[in-house]
């Protein structure tokens, strides 16, 4: 995984670098934020110096009330531990003492146009996504009516062709051929395309296709929660498959269990239609309707009524 630098944060959040430009190369490793109010009051026992330090107007105002000596010594303590950066929200004034410390220690002092609470709530999902472990999978990821479907299968089985047909039918491509997955939180698996491959599908006989140019902006989605894994496999009579779909099979990706379907492919079966129906089936299940279970229950009723009939006939 690539290191995540302060420079990237500055770019993505359009921040101003007020001081300590040398610190742009520093690496952020923790997704949590620290608001160092208690440290400014003089207690450093719990100083979370590995985290990005966020100053709101609360911290900035309190800072102004300190004596000059206190200001210098506490800021020195804050910077000496080499946190990744200091970030000031819209209404937090950056004092000269802090600017000087930033330049002296080579740590960025950054300024945002956003208010503290907005900034904090945006930073958390952004940093967890950026810092999560990513794993690449040989697969294709689509958004089919809100269901993220990860399509796997051997090279040449037709994953990209399935994707092309589904996108033509109004669904969205997320990534083709290589999907990078990470867990935004436990149990939530997010997939996205590597930057170079974004928008692109490779179709044998045609070449590389940009789905946004071909089908319009709605044909692509930046990232998507993976909710279903579909394996496209060669048709094989002997395969041990779940013929009725009553087993609710799951597959573990990274640390998350995801519903799993195995779809055998033959010339007579439209793979893209089958993938679409698999997604619809899962959607129904999420709405509380399990068609296979309903079928199985009505079957059991039929067996029961046959048994009663047989008993009655014996009695006669």
């Amino acid at each position, binding site marked *: 995984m690539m290191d995540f630098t302060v420079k990237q944060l500055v770019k993505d959040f359009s921040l101003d670098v007020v001081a300590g430009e040398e610190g742009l190369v520093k690496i952020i490793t923790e997704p949590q934020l620290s608001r160092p109010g208690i440290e400014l009051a003089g207690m450093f026992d719990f100083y979370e110096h590995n985290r990005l330090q966020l100053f709101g107007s609360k911290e900035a105002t309190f800072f102004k009330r300190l004596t000059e000596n206190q200001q210098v010594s506490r800021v020195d303590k804050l910077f000496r531990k080499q946190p990744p950066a200091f970030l000031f929200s819209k209404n937090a004034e950056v004092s000269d003492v802090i600017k000087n410390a930033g330049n002296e220690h080579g740590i960025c002092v950054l300024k945002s146009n956003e208010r503290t609470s907005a900034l904090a709530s945006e930073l958390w999902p952004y940093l967890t996504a950026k810092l999560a472990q990513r794993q690449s999978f040989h697969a294709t990821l689509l958004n089919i009516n809100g269901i993220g479907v990860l399509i796997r299968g051997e090279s040449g089985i037709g994953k990209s062709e399935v994707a092309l047909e589904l996108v033509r039918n109004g669904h969205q491509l997320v990534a083709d051929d290589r999907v990078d997955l990470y867990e935004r939180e436990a149990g939530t698996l997010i997939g996205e395309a590597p930057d170079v491959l974004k928008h692109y599908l490779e179709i044998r006989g045609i070449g590389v296709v940009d789905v946004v140019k071909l089908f319009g902006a709605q044909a692509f989605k930046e990232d998507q929660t993976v909710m279903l894994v579909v394996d496209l496999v060669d048709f094989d009579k*002997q395969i041990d498959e779940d*013929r009725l779909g009553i087993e609710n099979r799951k597959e573990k990706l990274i640390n998350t269990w995801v519903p799993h379907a195995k779809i055998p492919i033959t010339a007579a079966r439209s793979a893209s239609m089958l993938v679409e129906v698999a997604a619809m089936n899962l959607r129904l299940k999420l709405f509380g309707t399990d068609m296979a279970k309903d*079928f199985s229950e009505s*079957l*059991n009723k039929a067996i*029961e009524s046959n*048994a009663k009939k*047989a008993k009655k006939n014996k009695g006669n």
Partner: protein
Amino acid sequence: MKERTFVIKNPAGMHARPATKLVTLANHFKADVFIRYEDHQVNMKSVMGVLSLGIHGGSTITVRADGDDEEEALDAIEDLLRDFNMP
């Protein structure tokens, strides 16, 4: 062509799980395999066919296999039915 008759002992009858296992097994063989229950006979390689019978516990079924590996097919089916506490 060979036939064997079984009495389904399991009181739950031929519900979805054993039926799908049985059909998967039947598909392993080249022989045509049929299952008869009361007045109906269906292809044992078809899930919906077998389930349509609604075979209940205590009933009698006849399995008929026709092909080179008919003997093996019937043996395997007998074993599987025994695993399910069926025959």
